[in-house]
């Protein structure tokens, strides 16, 4: 399961990786970033990804942007953060503006509408898969599997089924979970 970790070699490496990752991210980069950083490039383990993702998620701003900044700054300081952010944003922004011009002309075509629907459905599946892959990393969590299942289950019900606003769930359940973890870690 665990493979040896080989972190990025240079800011240029960060720029290229985040450019390639961003360009695969139809329907959002969240769906592909775990796959690229952990499974393909082995920059970090599942556990490390979850830890960084937690910080990226709880900070204001887009979570993939936060994650890129965090990884960039860890390895190469401010230069790394800027390289990762530039990679994530530059090529997709140029592409988006070109697409906006094209969409104004052909956006109403049924084939285009259909293709977008199809890609949207796949992207939803990719995000679910990213979550499923990370489940295994919870085995080593000090909360224990039962507590993880209870907290994760409550979060899913609140966000996906009851549609409560994400920030409330994140901070509410998060406060409970962190308090329990704090107690367990003392032992």
């Amino acid at each position: 399961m665990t493979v040896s970790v080989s972190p990025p070699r240079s800011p240029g490496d960060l720029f290229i990786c985040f450019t390639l990752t961003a360009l695969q991210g139809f329907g959002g980069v969240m769906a592909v970033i775990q796959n690229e950083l952990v499974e393909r490039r082995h920059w970090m383990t599942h556990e490390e990804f979850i830890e960084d993702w937690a910080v990226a998620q709880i900070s204001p701003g887009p979570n993939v942007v936060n994650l890129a900044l965090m990884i960039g700054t860890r390895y190469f300081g401010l230069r790394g953060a800027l390289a990762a952010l530039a990679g994530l944003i530059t090529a997709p922004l140029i592409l988006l503006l070109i697409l906006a011009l094209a969409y104004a002309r052909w956006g109403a075509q049924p084939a285009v509408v259909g293709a977008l629907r199809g890609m949207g459905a796949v992207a939803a599946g990719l995000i679910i898969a990213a979550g499923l892959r990370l489940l295994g990393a919870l085995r080593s969590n000090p909360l224990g599997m039962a507590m993880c299942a209870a907290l994760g289950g409550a979060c899913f019900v609140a966000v996906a089924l009851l549609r409560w606003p994400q920030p409330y769930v994140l901070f509410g359940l998060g406060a409970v979970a962190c308090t329990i973890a704090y107690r367990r870690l003392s032992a």
Partner: protein
Amino acid sequence: MYHRLQAIERVNEMIVPVIGWADWVQLLAHYLVFSLISVGGAITVLPEMHRLLVVSQHWLSDAQFSASVALAQASPGPNILFVALMGWNIGLNAGSTWLALVAAILCLVSVLLPSSVLAVLAARWGHHNRERRAVRAFKQGMSPIVVSLLIATGWILASANGDPARDWPLWAVTAVSALVVWRTKVHLLWLLALGALLGAAGLL
């Protein structure tokens, strides 16, 4: 773009086409604040943006607003780029492609700058203090919640597939891609391409 704008202006006569310097400053100042309150991504402040851009200032039409979000989501890259696309459209409404380009970049920078500074500082502090009990408790405690949140996000996006009884092919595509990516090493782009092809062929 020109035809589309004409069509939109016919639908919504309310757009204020000329935006002065004071308006740009006001717009960017709002974005700086949105950035700091956007926990969970800029999507969470979408209602506030709609109120500012469409309802109160009439810088964008309703159709332009929704199309910006939809297009940025379909296009590869972070969804936050919808902010740049809205800036682009505001600039086009105000009259020129150059203005559109400058507006797109300024809007994106404003919405990213405060949250990015915060993320970098948080990352440095967290890494420096990673052995502290409180930091470890935070990361370990949040783990099951953020993993569950990923699955929940996918579920919410899948719900946009529509009624499972009628739109079952879309749901099937979501389920199959989740299973394939979870269990195999098939490249994600193949799945996205297949989804696009099936959709373009009218099978979904």
